């Protein structure tokens, strides 16, 4: 600026120039637009949302009008205001083109705001991308480094695959630039380009290696980032970069040994950002490579021992070092060092570091269990941490550490945790306890006791398969244990019924009802005094009940309005059984009266049971003792032995590895209990043709069927009785039909036959689940090779379903790939689709077990079914 030349007042400055300019423009144009600062003030001054909206709308209208009039003088200011408005959540897409005009302007100010706007307002679906690609290309060739910088920054943030392809060569040229400012930005741009279009990696390879010879930390860190991405991209590149291990080790060593450098120092640690990036790249290079691992052992040990740990930065580096030590083929002494660092982390005051430690231990526990075991007490302490995320990690880790030696102690802690834990933990925790108990139980009695405690503590959060598996264990136990079980469960049942907590503990009620029904005679008999009921704490709280009292409690529960139908079914059948377990006439009479009341129950399933069972007190009274005999011991489930039953399960949610395993087990269990009930043709025959002596098995089978966990809590009994739609529950109806109806009653058609196959070749489609307006359809279409594409569509008529999760399993010989679902929230009239790819090289008949879980108004619902009527020619 050379004002004196024109003889102007020497006191002139930028402010006066601006004023002159503003005035000059005001004279020829419309009034100056509100400044950004003033607009922000106005908006902040708005007292209500409506007031704010009116300010914003007014300003938006004004901005639009200036855009229409192609006002280039204030475009920059208007876009800046629009960006602020955009952040408040108002639509601002109409500024997209204006941003491009700013970018095309020669002024740096315009470009700076224009690119900022582009990064905020454009996403890669925009058609304007072609336009911006041209602008970027121009600016990447600019002479001003900051203009190149802006273009690179924008490209890095919003590069679409097309843009990446068009501009890759420009970026490659800029990586070779001598200017560090441009070089580092270009390196990260290359990183993003490769992320978007992995095929473009090749062209960057030559320029990349030289990045590590630079002194500038910005170039080094971006170079390491780029190489890391390349190595993760392809195994060939990984091998190509193995030779840089010594370079990386040298850079890291220099960082540690170099004295204090103020520019890169963070609380006494030299450039932690760069150190962490290098450690991570070393991890990738050393994985499964003994030679490379050998080359980095020393430096890792050095970092692990020399890093200052009083601050977060030091722990950051140690954490990354531990991860690397665990992942590469490191020496065992180094591994011990790493686990000990994590042990120290667990005792750290900083909760973030405790969390990280638990997370890492969880990752390493499968590699080196014994090293982690040493920190067991500390980990159990973390179960009491005030932080919920830490508790969750500690719980997962604790279960991973349970083994035959420590099961008693660990279970005590975990059961205590189960009792006090938040609702969201209970389901997972209780099934993990059940699994661990099954696997490591030191004795039968301990196993039963643990299951009873879980029933008591997990309440309704218990997964439904636990009920059937517990019953199976009791059923196959020794008589003395069965009596013990009945007595223990009676105590819990009575306490829950009296205290009114029964509705919160329905699984407990179900197991107790079944057990007492089977072994009620042992419960009330003198013999029970011989069994020690002293528990671990030395307390004996068992009081032998009278028959009458037991029936009173049943009556209380059965007449409660809050128990679920399936719990009542358990109770009702159990009560009927008790009529043959209890000896006095008075008890039998009382039981009969209660059962009779169900003859007019509002729920059709219970009503049918009531009518049928009451017949056993009248016309068919002579059948009763034989029919209601004790069940034979159930075979314990040994799922993995049956090849056919082994199912592959893929889950759609990638981040829950642990629940997946449970779900798998759950599905396998479910499938076995299902098989128990699935032998429908055989008992049908017995029911219709045999005389009464052999039919005593039938009701037992019937009660066995009631355990089938796949029957949802409120099974659609109407459908059952009329249509036999639900295959798993159908046998119950069939059996009773056979037993109580005239023998000539024609059998309802087998559910599998009800659905006729479509014409071959066309798309096959069936509704597989339908309940309460929620409907799941599965369609199948042949694909190339021995494969098929299945599509599941879920719709809901009335309710909005949240956390919708679709799971599927197929027999082991068939491979199942699940694509990601179209969503997890299903609104009324909406649809969630889930595509499944099934590859079946052996062309075995396809059976598909599906499971659907969701929340209606916060109530979780779980349903499953099996489809085995796919067209036979699906894979031809």
């Amino acid at each position, binding site marked *: *600026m050379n*004002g004196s030349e*024109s003889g*102007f007042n020497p006191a002139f400055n930028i402010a006066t*120039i*601006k004023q002159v*300019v503003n005035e*000059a*423009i005001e004279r020829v144009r419309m009034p100056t637009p509100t400044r950004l600062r003033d607009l*922000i003030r106005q908006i902040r001054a708005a007292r209500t949302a409506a007031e704010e909206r009116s300010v914003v709308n007014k300003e938006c209208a004004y901005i639009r009008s200036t855009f229409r009039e192609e006002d280039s003088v204030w475009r920059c200011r208007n876009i800046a205001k629009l*960006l*602020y408005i955009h952040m408040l*959540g108002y639509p601002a897409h109409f500024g997209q083109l204006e941003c491009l005009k700013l970018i095309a302007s020669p*002024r*740096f*100010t315009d470009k*700076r*705001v224009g690119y*900022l706007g582009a990064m905020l307002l454009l*996403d890669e*679906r925009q058609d304007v991308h072609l336009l911006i690609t041209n602008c970027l290309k121009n600016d990447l060739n600019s002479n001003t480094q*900051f203009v190149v910088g802006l273009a*690179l920054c924008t490209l*890095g*943030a*919003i*590069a679409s695959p097309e843009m990446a392809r068009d501009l890759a060569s420009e970026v490659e040229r800029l990586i070779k630039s001598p200017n560090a*400012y441009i070089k580092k*930005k270009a390196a*990260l*741009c290359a990183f993003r380009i490769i*992320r978007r279009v992995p095929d473009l990696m090749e062209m960057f390879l030559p320029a990349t290696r030289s990045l590590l010879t630079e002194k500038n*930390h*910005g170039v080094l*860190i*971006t170079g390491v*980032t780029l190489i890391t991405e390349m190595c993760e991209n392809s195994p060939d590149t990984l091998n190509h970069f193995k030779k840089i291990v010594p370079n990386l080790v040298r850079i890291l060593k220099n960082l540690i040994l170099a004295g204090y450098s103020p*520019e*890169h120092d*963070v609380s006494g640690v030299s*450039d*932690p*950002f*760069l150190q*962490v990036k290098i450690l*991570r790249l070393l991890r990738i290079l050393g994985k499964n490579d003994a030679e490379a691992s050998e080359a980095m052992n020393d430096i890792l040990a050095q970092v692990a021992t020399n890093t200052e740990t009083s601050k*977060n*930065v030091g722990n*950051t580096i140690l*954490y*990354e070092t531990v991860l690397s030590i665990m992942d590469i083929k490191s020496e065992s002494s180094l591994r011990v060092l790493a686990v000990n660092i994590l042990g120290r982390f667990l005792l750290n005051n900083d*909760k*973030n*570091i405790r*969390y*990280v430690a638990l997370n890492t231990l969880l990752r390493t526990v499968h590699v080196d269990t014994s090293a982690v075991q040493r920190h067991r007490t500390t980990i159990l302490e973390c179960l009491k941490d005030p*932080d919920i*995320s*830490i508790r969750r990690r500690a719980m997962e880790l604790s279960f991973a550490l349970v083994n035959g030696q420590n099961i008693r102690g660990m279970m005590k802690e975990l059961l205590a945790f189960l009792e006090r834990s938040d609702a969201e933990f209970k389901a997972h925790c209780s099934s993990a306890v059940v699994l661990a108990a099954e696997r490591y139980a030191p004795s039968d009695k301990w196993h039963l006791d643990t299951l009873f405690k879980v029933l008591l503590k997990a309440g309704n959060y218990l997964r439904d398969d636990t009920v059937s598996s517990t019953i199976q264990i009791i059923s196959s136990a020794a008589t003395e244990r069965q009596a013990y079980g009945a007595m223990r469960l009676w105590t819990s049942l009575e306490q829950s019924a009296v205290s009114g907590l029964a509705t919160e503990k329905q699984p407990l009620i179900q197991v107790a009802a079944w057990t007492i029904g089977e072994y009620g005679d042992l419960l009330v008999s003198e013999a029970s005094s011989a069994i020690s009921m002293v528990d671990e704490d030395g307390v004996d709280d068992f009081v032998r009940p009278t028959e009458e009292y037991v029936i009173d409690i049943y009556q209380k529960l059965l007449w409660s309005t809050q128990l679920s139908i399936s719990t009542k079914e358990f109770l009702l059948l159990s009560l009927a059984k008790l009529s043959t377990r209890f000896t006095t006439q008075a008890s039998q009479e009382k039981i009969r009266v209660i059962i009779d009341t169900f003859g007019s129950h509002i729920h059709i399933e219970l009503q049918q049971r009531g009518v049928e069972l009451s017949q056993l007190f009248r016309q068919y009274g002579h059948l009763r003792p034989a029919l209601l005999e004790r069940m034979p011991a159930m075979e314990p489930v040994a799922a993995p032995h049956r090849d056919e039953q082994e199912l592959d399960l893929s889950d759609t949610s990638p*981040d829950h590895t642990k629940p997946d395993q449970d779900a798998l087990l759950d599905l396998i269990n479910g499938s076995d209990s299902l098989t128990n009930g699935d032998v429908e043709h055989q008992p049908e025959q017995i029911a219709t043709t045999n005389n009464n002596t052999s039919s005593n098995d039938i009701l037992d089978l019937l009660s066995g069927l009631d355990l089938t966990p796949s029957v949802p809590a409120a099974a659609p009994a109407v459908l059952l009785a009329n249509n036999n739609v639900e295959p798993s529950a159908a046998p119950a109806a069939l059996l009773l039909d056979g037993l109580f109806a005239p023998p000539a009653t024609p059998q309802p058609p087998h559910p599998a036959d009800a659905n006729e196959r479509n014409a071959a070749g066309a798309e096959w489609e069936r509704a597989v689940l339908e309940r309460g307006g929620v409907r799941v359809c599965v369609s199948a279409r042949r694909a190339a090779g021995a494969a098929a594409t299945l599509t599941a569509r879920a719709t809901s008529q009335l309710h909005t379903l949240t956390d919708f999760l679709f799971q599927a399993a197929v027999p082991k010989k068939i491979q199942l790939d699940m694509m990601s679902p179209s969503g997890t929230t299903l609104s009324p009239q909406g649809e969630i689709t889930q595509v499944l790819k099934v590859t079946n090289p052996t062309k075995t008949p396809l059976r598909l077990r599906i499971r659907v879980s969701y929340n209606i108004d916060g109530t979780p619902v779980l349903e499953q079914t099996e489809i085995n009527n796919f067209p036979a020619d699906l894979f031809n």
Partner: protein
Amino acid sequence: MMQFMLLFSRQGKLRLQKWYVAHPDKLKKKITRELITTVLARKPKMCSFLEWKDVKVVYKRYASLYFCCAMEQEDNELLTLELIHRYVELLDKYLGSVCELDIIFNFEKAYFILDELVLGGELQETSKKNVLKAIAAQDLLQEDETVDAALRDVGWL
């Protein structure tokens, strides 16, 4: 790689948003809304990390402002805390003991600083000095232009 960064106030007002992944506007708004609610609901005793959908959320509160980054599974969450701290230090240096209001009124500057620190979701510069130097140089470039334009406008150039 960082997927996005959000700055929001204790009242849940968004103060800055930087996205490194391409999402439609509607999804961005949904994520922002849900994440703000989730983070604000957390108690002070809880740790700074949150496994949320498929990202690791790392957040830290500075005075009335929450700094919240969504990282990928492989990223070092402790380092992310350092990154957030570095950003705060830079804002502090540039705006002079920064407070929420400074960021509201200078939001574009806050973006410019972030763009010199992080590019495409990865850290590009580990020296505070270099970041501030680059920002200062660009500010100067803008100022020169203003003077230049003014002179042109009144006909002295």
